[in-house]
């Protein structure tokens, strides 16, 4: 029985979203297969790593028991002995476990952005999802747009700024934005997902507030033009060399609104709506009701992005469409979509159980391919010293 380690939580503003993704969309379905030994590894908000069965129970978090549990538990240590080994320390009741596959159910910083993948690469263990370089570029909205533009893929016009520069030349930056971009604008932290820290602005006062908010979360901020006659769509994709798309999904929003964190994950509804549908599922149209040609263009562009960025395992590509001109723009990439976007795959005909099994398969496939490559090279270089 293969041992799967599901890592979640972490030092990220999307910590709580990660818990739900891990427990509901990864651990439960993997366990239902009866094929794997599934182990939960929780990273606290302060960065300690814990390994305990109670961490796989959502009630541990919803009831607040997590705080007392963490006080009782000792953080684990990792060893890279012929792979990734979990170890609970040197006491009599110590446990060790050699992991076959890691499932990083992490969102945002120190998890989805490539940091964790670097560690897993060092351990030479198979893991689900995009590798370190792909994750790092995908989670940097600036780098991602620059790479897209360099490869002839359309994006909305954008500028980007570092916090230190804004502090020194705030007014100059405001002026530059006014000169080079057309209102309305979106201001976003460059590395965060789940719509955290994002604002839509119509004037300088709103822009200043939005920049301040975005810099609160990130050192790098991107400011981009809003696409006119907007239809926003997203495409979850799985696979390695041969990407397999699910349905193009369209959030049901109006141009005047956008989806902040609460809307996406708490209400599942457009901002201000009183009804309460389930998180991330109640507000979207799957498949997106677009003219066939436009649907195909959007799907093709998303698949092109998946290949260009060398994404693997799973990712979600977000696109913006000018519905009057039928132009599709690349917006951003989410290398570990919340809840794996399993609701979309289910409608496409792939159950959550089958989805996680496919992702394990892709992880092992990628791992095998990587290990076939030669990583040593004999030279006489050292002899000259």
């Amino acid at each position: 029985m293969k041992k799967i380690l599901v890592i979640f939580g972490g030092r990220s503003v999307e910590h709580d979203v990660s818990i739900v993704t891990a427990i509901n969309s990864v651990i439960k379905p993997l366990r239902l297969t009866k094929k794997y030994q599934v182990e939960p590894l929780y990273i606290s908000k302060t960065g300690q790593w814990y390994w305990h069965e109670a961490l796989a129970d959502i009630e541990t978090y919803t009831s607040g028991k997590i705080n007392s549990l963490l006080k009782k538990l000792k953080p684990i240590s990792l060893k890279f002995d012929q792979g990734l080994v979990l170890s609970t320390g040197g006491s009599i009741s110590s446990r060790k476990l050699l992991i076959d596959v890691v499932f990083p159910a992490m969102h945002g910083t120190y998890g989805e952005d490539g940091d964790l993948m670097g560690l897993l690469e060092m351990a030479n263990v198979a893991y689900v999802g995009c590798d370190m370089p792909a994750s790092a570029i995908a989670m940097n909205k600036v780098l991602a747009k620059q790479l897209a533009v360099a490869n002839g893929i359309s994006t909305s016009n954008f500028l980007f700024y570092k916090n230190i520069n804004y502090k020194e030349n705030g007014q100059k930056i405001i002026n530059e934005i006014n000169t080079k971009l057309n209102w309305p604008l979106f201001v976003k932290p460059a590395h965060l997902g789940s719509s955290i820290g994002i604002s839509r602005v119509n004037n300088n006062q709103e822009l200043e507030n939005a920049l301040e908010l975005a810099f609160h979360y990130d050192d790098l901020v991107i400011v981009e033009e809003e696409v006119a006659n907007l239809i926003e769509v997203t495409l979850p994709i799985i696979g390695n060399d041969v990407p397999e798309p699910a349905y193009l999904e369209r959030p049901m929003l109006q141009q005047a609104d956008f989806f902040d964190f609460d809307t996406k994950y708490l209400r599942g509804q457009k901002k201000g709506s009183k009804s309460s549908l389930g998180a991330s599922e109640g507000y979207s149209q799957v498949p997106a009701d677009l003219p066939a040609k436009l649907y195909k263009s959007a799907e093709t562009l998303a698949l092109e992005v998946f290949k260009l960025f060398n994404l693997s395992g799973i990712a979600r590509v977000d696109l913006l469409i000018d519905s009057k001109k039928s132009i599709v723009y690349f917006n951003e990439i989410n290398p570990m979509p919340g809840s794996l976007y399993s609701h979309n795959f289910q409608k496409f005909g792939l159950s959550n159980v089958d989805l996680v099994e496919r992702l394990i398969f892709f992880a092992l496939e990628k791992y095998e391919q990587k290990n076939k490559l030669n990583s040593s090279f004999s030279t006489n270089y050292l002899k000259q010293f």
Partner: protein
Amino acid sequence: MIKNLFSLYTYRYPKNIAYMLQASEYDARNYLIWLSKTKNFNLVSRRKQFIKTKFSILLYRFIAGGMLLQILIGLIIIILGFTNHFVGGQYYGLAIILSYPVIWPYLILILILVAKILIINPRDKIILDKAENIFKNHPGKIIAVLGSYGKTSMKEYLAIVLSEGKKVAVSPDNKNVALSHARFAQKLTGLEDYIVLEYGEGKNGDIAKLAKLTHPDFAIITGLAPVHQNHYKSIKQQADDLLSIEKYVDPTNIYLNSDTYFKDIKINKEINQFNDQSVLGFKISNILTDYSGTSFELSNKKQTNNFKSKVIGRHQVKYLALIIVISEQLGLTLNQIKKGIAKTKAFPHRMELSELNGAMVIDDSYNGNIEGIKAGLNLIKDLKAKRKIYVTPGLVDQGKKTKDIHLEMGRYIAAASPDIVVLMQNSTTESIKKGLAEDNYAGQLIVEDNPLDFYNNLSIFVAKDDLVLMQNDWPDNYK
């Protein structure tokens, strides 16, 4: 071992005992068998939970109170021992405290039996005598629906169709014992044209008891299959119990499904027989079943008519056809009958269709016999789906033939070839697996050791265009 021992001394123990009594339907034999087999009392309530009723709460409080009282007495005796007022009090007191989990599960049963003899039985007799009088003097006709399976659906379908032209009263839900009918009798107005009653049977003599109480004019026997084999000695005895209705109803007013196990039983020729092909001279043909329902043609030399119902499954047609013919004989017009048949639909947990994340789920968890299993498996052969998933824990109360029946069940499942078979781990699992292997089942087999977890997470197991058929239930008191 230690966990098992500790389970006797948890705060949940009194509630676990109350739950075991409740889940055994306060049947002393079933309760004692369960009690003797239980090792860890913390695990008795895996499939279902303690249901709060006036009686069950009273029982729970009585058990918990009794246990606390025993502990208190033990403590007092220990104190008396330490203060030299009771020689050896420490040991006697400790023994009294430690023994409460052993004493109360049996003591409460004795108290229930005493209460039954002194209070419940005399009270019930008054209610039953009153009810018999109501049924006996009621001007309407009484139709009894009995059989090993399908009787609740038959009763409901019949009531729906007859209601199109008659005043009909029908016994509620699946309540089918003497006391429930007695309570139902008190609600009758006396203005009903027809009263449709479901007769439950669990042991020899049950049918006769109900017939004596309710004085039926007609009887419909829906079928015969092995059930309650822990009480009936054989399928023959079970058949005799059903056929004992002949003593109370004119054989020409009895309608019997002659398919399945009745084929091997000698039947009085005066009894009307029906089956999948024909019903009282009418031929059944052109059956089509899909997720929207079932349509069929009913014809004799004089007429041919088409009907459509919302219920799914070919096996339902013979029952609907019988209702059509009986309804015509009782004076309903063709239009009234067609309208009634169109209204018939599945009832909760009986081939009940629902949608879950784009998958179609058929809940047939109230099925409890091999004939129902065959009907369900035939149905999934008929229905179109991207993936077909069959879920079952197996059948309870199959007596000495348990292994054979589950082996046969495994073969039927293999023949229907669903893509995935999910079995709930219990004493029948190996026999089903053997049957699957013998008929070279090639799909995916999952054995689930936590049924509740599986059912609760079914939504993540399925996807659009899947078909899931869930048959049978496995109460906690079965291993």
